[in-house]
């Protein structure tokens, strides 16, 4: 049976040598190497559930009066887009399960990507010869953030409409071309022309998924071309020799198991943990908004930045030159991603290390990188926290304006403190390692 199938394929494709090599491809083993795999599996769940959702979504923003099964919204004027998602959530079986699973999968996808990125950064996995893999990963992360934002904007509930308004404000703030660009994207001024939602829809279900899928394929191809990195432990890894479990039979059931468990956990979340109950938000109107509005968590750093920046517009002779949303909505993410893109160059310049690296650092092995990375992560995290100050006001009663002033100071001080502390901890850990090493040497003698 097996021999017959292999012979059939090999005789027609000559792929047996490649297949044999592929089956014996080695996977270095460490739990943290699975984070990227989890992201991949969440993407598969996203595509699967997303296909189901596209079959029920209506991208029209023409107006309709709701007479459906959800009585609290009876008689309300809304767009066909919102009504179709409402019907999907209340009438279609198993529409709510699929929609919630899709939303949860997006969250798991982005969490996994970010943890994977942190692992890659703090172990120095991005170093030569793997910079291309790293940069493509960063592009995928940016694409994914946009994809998530468009995804929940398509629902056209009150919260997503507010998100689009902010996106429009940020687009307008881009120097020189902001208004023209926004006019192109929105098909006119906000809330946009009739072409806007169909454009978002095709972007969300075709352009960006195909882009992410293509980048993903290149990302994985690049990983296999140079083999995976590895930690050095007692198993004899060196810069020249990779030690790992072969794809088949060792890795295959493990990866398949991880895929199925990831999918299972996401479906359990989708079935049991409510997410984005859009029927509670109601339809969007430009003149309506709700208090305590929060975007999906992965845009929390941007809303934090928009809230934290003081009210500065760059104004020349009574004409606005650079409007305020530019600082938090464009400049801040540009700086963060710019740092991530440029860091491999910066590190090489600082350390003078131009060598090939297949063996990973532990964070303590590179105190400078760990300190700089912790500083940037803390910076972004404090901005993220500032975005939740309104929830703190509601929950604990702290004055909102005072909190923002505190954050405006902390956001510059705490990252420096954390970076300094991280550097110190790395150096101390190195010292402990040396003492331990000397003791073992002495015992051996």
């Amino acid at each position, binding site marked *: 049976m097996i021999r017959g199938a292999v012979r059939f394929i090999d005789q027609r494709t000559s792929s047996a040598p490649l297949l044999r090599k592929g089956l014996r491809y080695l996977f270095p083993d460490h739990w943290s190497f699975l984070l990227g795999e989890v992201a991949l599996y969440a993407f598969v769940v996203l595509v699967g559930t997303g296909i189901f959702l596209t079959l029920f979504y209506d991208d029209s923003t023409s107006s309709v009066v709701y007479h459906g099964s959800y009585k609290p919204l009876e008689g309300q004027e809304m767009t066909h887009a919102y009504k179709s998602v409402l019907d999907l959530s209340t009438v279609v079986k198993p529409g709510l399960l699929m929609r919630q699973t899709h939303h949860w999968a997006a969250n798991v996808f982005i969490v996994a990507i970010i943890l994977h990125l942190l692992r890659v950064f703090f172990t120095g996995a991005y170093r030569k010869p793997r910079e291309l893999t790293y940069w493509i990963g960063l592009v995928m992360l940016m694409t994914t953030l946009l994809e998530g934002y468009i995804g929940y904007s398509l629902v056209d509930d009150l919260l997503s409409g507010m998100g689009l308004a902010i996106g429009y404000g940020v687009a307008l703030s881009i120097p020189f071309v902001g208004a023209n660009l926004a006019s192109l994207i929105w098909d006119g001024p906000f809330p946009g022309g009739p072409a806007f939602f169909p454009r978002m829809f095709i972007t969300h279900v075709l352009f960006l998924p195909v882009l992410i899928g293509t980048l993903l394929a290149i990302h994985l191809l690049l990983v296999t071309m140079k083999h995976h990195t590895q930690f050095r432990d007692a198993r004899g890894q060196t810069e020249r020799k990779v030690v790992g479990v072969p794809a088949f039979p060792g890795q295959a059931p493990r990866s398949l198991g991880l895929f199925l468990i990831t999918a299972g956990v996401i479906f359990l979340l989708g079935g049991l943990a409510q997410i984005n109950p859009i029927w509670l938000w109601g339809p969007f109107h430009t003149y309506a908004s709700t208090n305590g509005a929060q975007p999906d968590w992965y845009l929390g750093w941007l809303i934090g930045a*928009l809230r934290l920046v003081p009210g500065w517009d760059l104004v020349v002779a009574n004409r606005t030159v650079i409007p305020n949303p530019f600082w938090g909505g464009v400049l801040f993410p540009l700086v963060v991603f710019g740092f991530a893109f440029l860091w491999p160059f910066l590190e090489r310049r600082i350390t003078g290390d131009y060598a090939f690296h297949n063996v990973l650092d532990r964070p303590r092995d590179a105190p400078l990188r760990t300190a700089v990375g912790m500083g940037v992560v803390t910076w972004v995290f404090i901005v993220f926290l500032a975005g939740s100050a309104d929830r703190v006001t509601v929950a604990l009663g702290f004055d909102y304006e005072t909190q923002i002033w505190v954050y405006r100071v902390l956001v510059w001080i705490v990252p420096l403190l954390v970076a300094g502390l991280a550097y110190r901890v790395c150096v101390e850990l190195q010292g402990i390692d040396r003492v331990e090493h000397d003791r073992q040497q002495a015992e051996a003698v």
Partner: protein
Amino acid sequence: MSRVRDLVVSGAVVLVSKLAPRPRPPRERVVPPGEPSPRAELLAIGLLGLGSVCSLAFIAAYALDRLGGQTQLMGLALGLAFVAFGTAGIVIARHLVVTEELSEDYGPEEHPEEQETIAALVEDSSSRLTRKRLFKLSLFGAGATLGAALLAPLASLGPVLDLDRFVASPWRRGTRLVGEDGRPLRAADIEERTFYTAFPEGADREAMAASLVVVRLPPGSLNLPPANTGYDAGGIVAYSKICTHAGCAISLYRTPLYAPADPAPALVCPCHYSTFDPATGGTVTFGPAGRKLPMLPVFVDGRGELRARGTFDDPVGPSWWGVRSRDARPRAPQ
């Protein structure tokens, strides 16, 4: 009888031996042998069975509309099916597949000879060209112009150069203010310490310059700058409802109902908490907005209904490059 039996048995043996695979010459194992692990095998089979039961339970939950909490049951069944199958995979990986740890070379860091050949190939192939710089320039020009030509149709996506619509306003002198129910707003109905959303009568409510937030301020608290003198109608002031920061609707009116009645009443946007003072012409008192809230001059007509005296004193909504703004500097709260 026994002959018949012998015949049947020998026939069966021949048949089975024909069906059975031919013996192969012994070969070297690719994967090293390992001890059988009957308990793990049983566990894996059990998990596969459990997953199948859960899969069927999902179909049942899908089909039976009488069940309450169908979404939860379907999610539970499908999720558990995946988890059971996945756990079976992990059991197989850990206990039923021989754990091999192999090593091999990372492969060459680079291929200097191949690199050299490729470079030489490109160089040699252009040896007949004499005006290399001009050639490169024209190639660059070809690429750039073709790229520009292919991108030009993107301008059809929207009215790219026509920004008049960004400053268009449905408000004219005499336009009546109507509430969310479509009825005219009567000055006598406007109370203090709450806000009203208003629209121009008969206009598209979703346009950015349409919606208003209308409040009545306590007598004597009004402190409008000279440019806005006469914009209020006896303590009633009207502002654009769209925040000048990022375009959300202003739907918070912070006005303490008990002592200390401080800070003063303020209009707040819930998106980024830009805070505007309705008593001073909509100046920014806190938050990221860089520009005051546009104010609409209103008056009370002979029937006691509110009407616009003209359009806003400043462009509505978030700013863009070059938009004119009268008062960009936030002022200290009064």
